[in-house]
Protein backbone atom coordinates (compact mmCIF):
# COMPACT_ATOMS: atom_id res chain seq x y z
CA UNK A 1 0.00 0.00 0.00
CA UNK A 2 1.45 3.34 -1.02
CA UNK A 3 1.75 6.22 1.38
CA UNK A 4 2.68 9.50 -0.25
CA UNK A 5 4.14 12.06 2.13
CA UNK A 6 3.46 15.58 0.87
CA UNK A 7 5.81 17.81 2.78
CA UNK A 8 4.12 20.76 4.44
CA UNK A 9 6.77 23.42 4.94
CA UNK A 10 4.59 26.49 4.57
CA UNK A 11 5.31 27.00 0.89
CA UNK A 12 2.02 26.98 -0.91
CA UNK A 13 -0.25 24.79 -2.90
CA UNK A 14 -0.38 21.60 -0.82
CA UNK A 15 -4.08 21.18 -1.35
CA UNK A 16 -3.79 21.08 -5.13
CA UNK A 17 -1.02 18.49 -5.01
CA UNK A 18 -2.90 16.40 -2.45
CA UNK A 19 -6.12 16.44 -4.50
CA UNK A 20 -4.29 15.47 -7.67
CA UNK A 21 -2.49 12.57 -5.96
CA UNK A 22 -5.82 11.33 -4.58
CA UNK A 23 -7.33 11.48 -8.07
CA UNK A 24 -4.38 9.40 -9.26
CA UNK A 25 -5.09 6.75 -6.66
CA UNK A 26 -2.41 7.58 -4.07
CA UNK A 27 -2.89 7.62 -0.30
CA UNK A 28 -1.70 10.95 0.94
CA UNK A 29 -0.33 12.28 4.16
CA UNK A 30 0.28 16.03 4.36
CA UNK A 31 2.99 16.28 6.96
CA UNK A 32 5.80 18.24 8.57
CA UNK A 33 6.94 15.39 10.78
CA UNK A 34 10.15 13.44 10.27
CA UNK A 35 8.46 10.23 11.45
CA UNK A 36 5.80 10.46 8.76
CA UNK A 37 8.45 11.11 6.15
CA UNK A 38 10.32 8.00 7.34
CA UNK A 39 7.30 5.72 6.92
CA UNK A 40 6.32 7.00 3.46
CA UNK A 41 6.66 4.93 0.29
CA UNK A 42 6.88 8.10 -1.83
CA UNK A 43 7.84 11.66 -0.94
CA UNK A 44 6.69 14.82 -2.69
CA UNK A 45 8.17 18.25 -2.04
CA UNK A 46 5.77 20.75 -3.61
CA UNK A 47 6.07 24.46 -3.23
CA UNK A 48 5.86 27.90 -4.67
CA UNK A 49 7.68 30.93 -3.33
CA UNK A 50 11.26 31.93 -2.77
CA UNK A 51 14.28 29.62 -2.47
CA UNK A 52 15.62 31.28 0.67
CA UNK A 53 12.28 31.09 2.51
CA UNK A 54 11.84 27.47 1.43
CA UNK A 55 15.21 26.44 2.84
CA UNK A 56 14.64 28.39 6.07
CA UNK A 57 11.38 26.54 6.60
CA UNK A 58 12.84 23.10 5.83
CA UNK A 59 15.64 23.81 8.30
CA UNK A 60 13.40 25.03 11.09
CA UNK A 61 11.24 21.91 10.72
CA UNK A 62 14.44 19.82 10.91
CA UNK A 63 13.52 17.89 7.78
CA UNK A 64 16.85 18.18 5.95
CA UNK A 65 18.51 15.11 7.40
CA UNK A 66 15.52 12.81 7.15
CA UNK A 67 14.97 13.82 3.51
CA UNK A 68 18.59 13.09 2.65
CA UNK A 69 18.50 9.77 4.51
CA UNK A 70 15.29 8.60 2.83
CA UNK A 71 16.34 9.70 -0.65
CA UNK A 72 20.01 8.73 -0.72
CA UNK A 73 20.25 5.78 1.65
CA UNK A 74 16.74 4.27 1.56
CA UNK A 75 16.23 5.24 -2.10
CA UNK A 76 12.61 6.20 -1.56
CA UNK A 77 11.08 7.70 -4.75
CA UNK A 78 11.06 11.47 -4.44
CA UNK A 79 9.40 14.14 -6.60
CA UNK A 80 10.19 17.84 -6.28
CA UNK A 81 7.69 20.16 -7.95
CA UNK A 82 8.61 23.72 -9.00
CA UNK A 83 10.35 25.21 -5.94
CA UNK A 84 10.54 21.66 -4.61
CA UNK A 85 12.73 20.74 -7.59
CA UNK A 86 14.87 23.85 -7.25
CA UNK A 87 15.61 23.18 -3.57
CA UNK A 88 17.46 19.99 -4.60
CA UNK A 89 20.28 22.21 -5.91
CA UNK A 90 23.56 23.04 -4.18
CA UNK A 91 22.62 26.71 -4.00
CA UNK A 92 20.05 29.24 -5.14
CA UNK A 93 20.07 32.98 -5.90
CA UNK A 94 16.45 33.89 -5.14
CA UNK A 95 16.22 36.10 -2.06
CA UNK A 96 20.05 36.23 -1.81
CA UNK A 97 22.51 33.35 -2.25
CA UNK A 98 21.34 30.41 -0.13
CA UNK A 99 22.57 26.88 0.31
CA UNK A 100 20.13 24.23 -0.99
CA UNK A 101 19.55 20.58 -0.09
CA UNK A 102 22.50 19.65 -2.30
CA UNK A 103 20.89 16.42 -3.48
CA UNK A 104 21.56 17.30 -7.11
CA UNK A 105 24.62 19.36 -7.87
CA UNK A 106 23.77 22.64 -9.54
CA UNK A 107 22.55 26.16 -9.10
CA UNK A 108 19.20 27.95 -9.27
CA UNK A 109 19.35 31.20 -11.22
CA UNK A 110 16.96 33.75 -12.63
CA UNK A 111 15.77 33.07 -16.16
CA UNK A 112 17.24 35.35 -18.82
CA UNK A 113 14.72 36.64 -21.32
CA UNK A 114 15.37 36.80 -25.03
CA UNK A 115 13.64 39.47 -27.20
CA UNK A 116 9.88 39.49 -26.61
CA UNK A 117 9.84 37.02 -23.73
CA UNK A 118 8.28 38.10 -20.43
CA UNK A 119 8.88 36.99 -16.86
CA UNK A 120 7.51 35.16 -14.93
CA UNK A 121 7.40 32.30 -17.43
CA UNK A 122 3.68 31.80 -16.94
CA UNK A 123 1.42 29.42 -18.80
CA UNK A 124 1.50 26.27 -20.92
CA UNK A 125 4.69 25.29 -22.65
CA UNK A 126 6.21 22.18 -24.19
CA UNK A 127 8.35 19.68 -22.36
CA UNK A 128 10.93 18.30 -24.78
CA UNK A 129 12.61 15.09 -23.74
CA UNK A 130 16.39 14.84 -23.59
CA UNK A 131 16.39 11.30 -22.26
CA UNK A 132 14.10 8.41 -21.59
CA UNK A 133 12.60 8.37 -18.12
CA UNK A 134 9.99 6.28 -16.37
CA UNK A 135 8.40 9.59 -15.37
CA UNK A 136 7.33 10.09 -19.00
CA UNK A 137 5.82 6.65 -19.55
CA UNK A 138 3.00 6.86 -22.16
CA UNK A 139 3.37 10.63 -22.60
CA UNK A 140 4.79 11.78 -25.96
CA UNK A 141 7.52 14.41 -26.02
CA UNK A 142 6.62 18.07 -26.77
CA UNK A 143 3.36 18.05 -24.79
CA UNK A 144 2.25 21.18 -22.94
CA UNK A 145 2.47 21.49 -19.17
CA UNK A 146 1.70 24.41 -16.88
CA UNK A 147 4.62 26.56 -15.72
CA UNK A 148 4.76 29.49 -13.32
CA UNK A 149 8.28 30.59 -12.31
CA UNK A 150 11.09 33.12 -12.80
CA UNK A 151 14.04 30.97 -11.68
CA UNK A 152 15.44 27.76 -13.13
CA UNK A 153 17.66 24.92 -12.08
CA UNK A 154 21.03 24.64 -13.84
CA UNK A 155 22.46 21.19 -13.03
CA UNK A 156 26.22 20.82 -12.93
CA UNK A 157 25.96 17.45 -14.65
CA UNK A 158 23.93 17.40 -17.87
CA UNK A 159 23.34 13.67 -17.55
CA UNK A 160 20.64 14.41 -14.94
CA UNK A 161 18.62 16.49 -17.39
CA UNK A 162 15.65 14.53 -18.74
CA UNK A 163 13.73 17.40 -20.36
CA UNK A 164 14.07 21.00 -21.47
CA UNK A 165 11.61 23.70 -22.45
CA UNK A 166 12.20 26.29 -25.13
CA UNK A 167 11.91 29.59 -23.33
CA UNK A 168 14.66 31.79 -21.97
CA UNK A 169 17.39 29.81 -23.74
CA UNK A 170 15.96 26.31 -23.36
CA UNK A 171 15.89 25.86 -19.60
CA UNK A 172 15.86 22.52 -17.77
CA UNK A 173 12.25 21.50 -17.07
CA UNK A 174 12.81 18.01 -15.59
CA UNK A 175 15.64 16.14 -13.88
CA UNK A 176 16.22 12.63 -12.62
CA UNK A 177 18.92 10.92 -10.61
CA UNK A 178 17.89 7.33 -9.93
CA UNK A 179 14.91 7.58 -7.51
CA UNK A 180 15.09 11.37 -7.40
CA UNK A 181 12.82 13.32 -9.76
CA UNK A 182 12.24 17.03 -10.19
CA UNK A 183 9.88 18.93 -12.49
CA UNK A 184 9.77 22.69 -12.97
CA UNK A 185 6.17 22.56 -14.24
CA UNK A 186 3.08 21.80 -12.15
CA UNK A 187 1.77 18.29 -12.93
CA UNK A 188 -1.06 18.85 -10.42
CA UNK A 189 -2.32 21.71 -12.60
CA UNK A 190 -1.61 20.17 -15.99
CA UNK A 191 -4.78 18.09 -16.33
CA UNK A 192 -4.54 14.68 -18.06
CA UNK A 193 -0.83 14.87 -18.96
CA UNK A 194 0.05 16.07 -15.50
CA UNK A 195 -1.91 13.26 -13.87
CA UNK A 196 -0.02 10.77 -16.01
CA UNK A 197 3.26 12.13 -14.65
CA UNK A 198 1.97 11.67 -11.10
CA UNK A 199 0.74 8.14 -11.87
CA UNK A 200 4.13 7.28 -13.34
CA UNK A 201 5.81 8.60 -10.21
CA UNK A 202 3.50 6.54 -7.98
CA UNK A 203 4.25 3.45 -10.07
CA UNK A 204 8.00 3.96 -9.65
CA UNK A 205 9.54 1.78 -7.00
CA UNK A 206 13.23 1.34 -6.47
CA UNK A 207 13.74 -2.38 -6.69
Amino acid at each position, binding site marked *: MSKVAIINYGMGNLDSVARAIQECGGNIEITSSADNVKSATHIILPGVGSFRKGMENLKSLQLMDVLKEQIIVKKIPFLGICLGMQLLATKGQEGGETEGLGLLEGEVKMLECVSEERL*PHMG*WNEVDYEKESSLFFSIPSHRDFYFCHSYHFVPADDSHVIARTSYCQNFVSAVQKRNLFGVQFHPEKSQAMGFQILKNFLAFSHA
Partner: protein
Amino acid sequence: MLKVRIIPTLLYRDFELAKGIRFDSWRRIGGVVQAVRVYNMRMVDELIFLDITATLQKRDPNFQIVDDLADECFMPLTVGGGVRTIQDVQRLLQVGADKVAMNTAGIEFPELIKLVANKFGSQCAVVSIDVKKSPNGKYSVYTHSGTQSTDLDPIFVAKRAEEYGAGEILLCSIDRDGTMEGYDIELIQQVAQAISIPIIASGGAGNYEHMAQAVIEGGASAVAAGSIFQFTQQTPREAKLFLKEKGIPVRL
Protein backbone atom coordinates in the same frame (compact mmCIF):
# COMPACT_ATOMS: atom_id res chain seq x y z
CA MET B 1 6.84 27.79 -27.38
CA LEU B 2 4.84 29.47 -24.64
CA LYS B 3 1.14 29.32 -25.47
CA VAL B 4 -1.36 32.16 -25.39
CA ARG B 5 -3.93 31.30 -22.74
CA ILE B 6 -7.69 31.61 -23.07
CA ILE B 7 -9.19 32.09 -19.63
CA PRO B 8 -12.90 31.97 -18.79
CA THR B 9 -13.76 34.45 -16.03
CA LEU B 10 -16.30 33.43 -13.41
CA LEU B 11 -17.88 36.29 -11.49
CA TYR B 12 -19.38 35.40 -8.14
CA ARG B 13 -22.13 37.62 -6.81
CA ASP B 14 -24.51 36.91 -3.95
CA PHE B 15 -23.97 33.13 -3.79
CA GLU B 16 -23.96 32.36 -7.48
CA LEU B 17 -22.24 33.16 -10.73
CA ALA B 18 -23.36 36.20 -12.66
CA LYS B 19 -22.38 38.27 -15.67
CA GLY B 20 -23.15 41.94 -16.24
CA ILE B 21 -22.60 44.70 -18.76
CA ARG B 22 -20.16 47.51 -17.84
CA PHE B 23 -20.10 46.20 -14.26
CA ASP B 24 -23.92 46.53 -14.09
CA SER B 25 -27.16 44.81 -15.35
CA TRP B 26 -26.38 41.44 -13.79
CA ARG B 27 -27.70 38.12 -15.04
CA ARG B 28 -27.51 34.94 -13.01
CA ILE B 29 -25.66 32.08 -14.62
CA GLY B 30 -25.71 29.31 -12.07
CA GLY B 31 -23.58 27.29 -9.67
CA VAL B 32 -19.84 27.59 -9.23
CA VAL B 33 -18.68 24.02 -8.74
CA GLN B 34 -20.73 22.83 -11.69
CA ALA B 35 -19.16 25.46 -13.95
CA VAL B 36 -15.66 24.47 -12.81
CA ARG B 37 -16.38 20.79 -13.53
CA VAL B 38 -17.49 21.64 -17.06
CA TYR B 39 -14.39 23.74 -17.75
CA ASN B 40 -12.23 21.02 -16.25
CA MET B 41 -13.72 18.46 -18.60
CA ARG B 42 -13.12 20.79 -21.54
CA MET B 43 -9.42 21.12 -20.64
CA VAL B 44 -9.54 24.89 -20.31
CA ASP B 45 -6.11 26.59 -19.88
CA GLU B 46 -6.87 28.39 -16.65
CA LEU B 47 -9.75 29.94 -14.69
CA ILE B 48 -10.30 33.30 -13.01
CA PHE B 49 -12.80 33.46 -10.16
CA LEU B 50 -13.72 36.90 -8.84
CA ASP B 51 -15.98 37.53 -5.86
CA ILE B 52 -17.13 40.94 -7.07
CA THR B 53 -19.28 42.02 -4.13
CA ALA B 54 -16.85 41.15 -1.31
CA THR B 55 -15.09 44.52 -1.17
CA LEU B 56 -18.33 46.47 -1.69
CA GLN B 57 -19.98 44.56 1.15
CA LYS B 58 -16.84 44.92 3.26
CA ARG B 59 -16.62 41.18 3.82
CA ASP B 60 -13.82 38.65 3.61
CA PRO B 61 -13.32 36.43 0.59
CA ASN B 62 -15.58 33.37 0.70
CA PHE B 63 -12.90 30.83 1.59
CA GLN B 64 -15.35 27.94 1.71
CA ILE B 65 -16.55 28.38 -1.84
CA VAL B 66 -12.96 28.73 -3.07
CA ASP B 67 -12.06 25.53 -1.22
CA ASP B 68 -14.99 23.71 -2.86
CA LEU B 69 -14.24 24.86 -6.36
CA ALA B 70 -10.47 24.39 -6.05
CA ASP B 71 -11.06 20.73 -5.16
CA GLU B 72 -12.56 20.26 -8.62
CA CYS B 73 -10.14 22.51 -10.45
CA PHE B 74 -7.15 20.66 -11.93
CA MET B 75 -6.02 23.68 -13.87
CA PRO B 76 -4.49 26.93 -12.67
CA LEU B 77 -6.90 29.07 -10.68
CA THR B 78 -6.71 32.79 -9.99
CA VAL B 79 -8.96 34.04 -7.18
CA GLY B 80 -9.86 37.63 -6.39
CA GLY B 81 -12.40 39.76 -4.55
CA GLY B 82 -12.22 41.08 -1.00
CA VAL B 83 -8.48 40.46 -0.66
CA ARG B 84 -7.22 43.01 1.87
CA THR B 85 -4.45 41.43 3.91
CA ILE B 86 -1.56 39.03 3.64
CA GLN B 87 -3.62 36.62 5.77
CA ASP B 88 -6.40 36.67 3.15
CA VAL B 89 -3.82 35.76 0.51
CA GLN B 90 -2.36 32.99 2.65
CA ARG B 91 -5.78 31.43 3.28
CA LEU B 92 -6.76 31.59 -0.38
CA LEU B 93 -3.52 29.87 -1.37
CA GLN B 94 -4.06 27.28 1.35
CA VAL B 95 -7.53 26.35 0.13
CA GLY B 96 -6.26 25.88 -3.42
CA ALA B 97 -5.88 29.17 -5.29
CA ASP B 98 -2.72 29.23 -7.40
CA LYS B 99 -2.71 32.98 -7.83
CA VAL B 100 -4.46 35.75 -5.95
CA ALA B 101 -5.77 38.87 -7.67
CA MET B 102 -5.52 42.14 -5.77
CA ASN B 103 -7.68 44.97 -7.03
CA THR B 104 -8.81 47.64 -4.55
CA ALA B 105 -6.17 46.72 -1.95
CA GLY B 106 -3.41 46.46 -4.56
CA ILE B 107 -4.15 50.03 -5.59
CA GLU B 108 -4.99 51.68 -2.25
CA PHE B 109 -2.28 49.80 -0.36
CA PRO B 110 0.35 48.75 -2.91
CA GLU B 111 2.70 47.61 -0.13
CA LEU B 112 0.47 44.51 0.02
CA ILE B 113 1.85 43.46 -3.38
CA LYS B 114 5.38 43.59 -1.94
CA LEU B 115 4.40 41.56 1.09
CA VAL B 116 2.71 38.91 -1.04
CA ALA B 117 5.55 38.70 -3.56
CA ASN B 118 8.17 38.39 -0.82
CA LYS B 119 6.29 35.80 1.16
CA PHE B 120 4.66 33.67 -1.53
CA GLY B 121 6.52 34.65 -4.70
CA SER B 122 5.71 36.94 -7.61
CA GLN B 123 4.13 34.10 -9.54
CA CYS B 124 1.03 34.18 -7.31
CA ALA B 125 0.70 37.97 -7.08
CA VAL B 126 -1.75 39.18 -9.73
CA VAL B 127 -2.77 42.82 -9.74
CA SER B 128 -6.16 43.41 -11.27
CA ILE B 129 -6.66 46.88 -12.79
CA ASP B 130 -10.12 48.09 -13.83
CA VAL B 131 -10.01 51.03 -16.21
CA LYS B 132 -12.53 53.54 -17.59
CA LYS B 133 -11.97 56.09 -20.34
CA SER B 134 -13.28 59.58 -19.64
CA PRO B 135 -15.05 61.61 -22.39
CA ASN B 136 -11.79 63.51 -22.98
CA GLY B 137 -10.06 60.22 -23.79
CA LYS B 138 -8.04 59.92 -20.59
CA TYR B 139 -7.83 56.50 -18.94
CA SER B 140 -8.23 56.20 -15.20
CA VAL B 141 -8.21 53.35 -12.72
CA TYR B 142 -11.31 52.44 -10.70
CA THR B 143 -11.56 50.43 -7.48
CA HIS B 144 -14.38 48.78 -5.49
CA SER B 145 -15.75 46.79 -8.45
CA GLY B 146 -15.54 49.81 -10.70
CA THR B 147 -17.57 52.12 -8.44
CA GLN B 148 -14.81 54.48 -7.24
CA SER B 149 -12.54 56.59 -9.41
CA THR B 150 -8.92 57.04 -8.36
CA ASP B 151 -7.71 59.44 -11.07
CA LEU B 152 -4.67 57.19 -11.34
CA ASP B 153 -3.22 56.41 -14.74
CA PRO B 154 -3.30 52.66 -15.54
CA ILE B 155 0.29 52.78 -16.80
CA PHE B 156 1.45 54.22 -13.49
CA VAL B 157 -0.49 51.60 -11.52
CA ALA B 158 0.80 48.74 -13.69
CA LYS B 159 4.41 49.90 -13.50
CA ARG B 160 4.21 50.31 -9.75
CA ALA B 161 2.68 46.83 -9.43
CA GLU B 162 5.54 45.37 -11.47
CA GLU B 163 8.12 47.23 -9.41
CA TYR B 164 6.53 45.93 -6.19
CA GLY B 165 6.77 42.36 -7.40
CA ALA B 166 3.50 41.52 -9.16
CA GLY B 167 3.82 38.55 -11.51
CA GLU B 168 0.91 39.36 -13.78
CA ILE B 169 -1.57 42.13 -14.59
CA LEU B 170 -5.25 41.43 -15.18
CA LEU B 171 -6.30 44.46 -17.19
CA CYS B 172 -10.01 45.08 -17.57
CA SER B 173 -11.80 47.77 -19.54
CA ILE B 174 -14.99 48.66 -17.68
CA ASP B 175 -16.34 50.40 -20.81
CA ARG B 176 -16.08 47.19 -22.82
CA ASP B 177 -17.06 44.72 -20.08
CA GLY B 178 -19.99 42.54 -21.16
CA THR B 179 -20.56 44.52 -24.36
CA MET B 180 -18.97 41.88 -26.59
CA GLU B 181 -17.76 44.77 -28.80
CA GLY B 182 -14.07 43.86 -28.55
CA TYR B 183 -11.24 44.54 -26.12
CA ASP B 184 -9.85 48.04 -25.66
CA ILE B 185 -6.77 47.42 -27.79
CA GLU B 186 -5.28 50.86 -27.23
CA LEU B 187 -5.37 50.36 -23.45
CA ILE B 188 -3.78 46.90 -23.68
CA GLN B 189 -1.07 48.21 -26.01
CA GLN B 190 -0.18 51.11 -23.75
CA VAL B 191 0.15 48.93 -20.65
CA ALA B 192 1.86 46.01 -22.44
CA GLN B 193 4.53 48.34 -23.78
CA ALA B 194 5.15 49.90 -20.38
CA ILE B 195 5.81 46.69 -18.42
CA SER B 196 7.55 43.36 -18.93
CA ILE B 197 5.35 41.01 -16.88
CA PRO B 198 2.50 39.16 -18.65
CA ILE B 199 -0.86 40.85 -19.21
CA ILE B 200 -4.25 39.16 -19.25
CA ALA B 201 -6.62 41.23 -21.38
CA SER B 202 -10.18 41.41 -20.10
CA GLY B 203 -13.44 43.10 -21.02
CA GLY B 204 -15.22 43.07 -24.33
CA ALA B 205 -14.56 39.76 -26.08
CA GLY B 206 -17.46 39.01 -28.40
CA ASN B 207 -15.79 36.81 -30.97
CA TYR B 208 -12.53 35.02 -31.67
CA GLU B 209 -11.22 37.83 -33.85
CA HIS B 210 -11.32 40.13 -30.81
CA MET B 211 -9.06 37.69 -28.98
CA ALA B 212 -6.60 37.60 -31.85
CA GLN B 213 -6.52 41.41 -31.86
CA ALA B 214 -5.77 41.58 -28.13
CA VAL B 215 -2.79 39.28 -28.67
CA ILE B 216 -1.42 40.45 -32.02
CA GLU B 217 -2.14 44.18 -31.80
CA GLY B 218 -2.41 44.61 -28.04
CA GLY B 219 0.47 42.38 -26.96
CA ALA B 220 -1.52 40.45 -24.33
CA SER B 221 -0.10 37.13 -23.07
CA ALA B 222 -3.55 35.79 -22.30
CA VAL B 223 -7.17 36.71 -22.94
CA ALA B 224 -9.94 36.46 -20.37
CA ALA B 225 -13.60 36.35 -21.32
CA GLY B 226 -16.97 35.95 -19.64
CA SER B 227 -20.05 36.70 -21.73
CA ILE B 228 -18.80 35.06 -24.91
CA PHE B 229 -18.58 31.69 -23.16
CA GLN B 230 -21.74 32.14 -21.10
CA PHE B 231 -24.22 33.70 -23.51
CA THR B 232 -23.09 32.45 -26.91
CA GLN B 233 -22.27 29.10 -28.48
CA GLN B 234 -18.59 30.02 -28.78
CA THR B 235 -16.13 27.89 -26.80
CA PRO B 236 -12.53 28.18 -25.56
CA ARG B 237 -11.52 25.28 -27.79
CA GLU B 238 -12.93 26.84 -30.96
CA ALA B 239 -11.28 30.10 -29.98
CA LYS B 240 -7.94 28.30 -29.88
CA LEU B 241 -8.48 26.69 -33.27
CA PHE B 242 -9.18 30.17 -34.65
CA LEU B 243 -6.07 31.67 -33.03
CA LYS B 244 -3.97 28.82 -34.33
CA GLU B 245 -5.09 29.65 -37.89
CA LYS B 246 -3.82 33.17 -37.25
CA GLY B 247 -0.41 31.82 -36.29
CA ILE B 248 -0.83 32.35 -32.55
CA PRO B 249 0.61 29.51 -30.40
CA VAL B 250 -2.12 27.79 -28.37
CA ARG B 251 -2.50 24.53 -26.47
CA LEU B 252 -4.88 22.12 -28.17
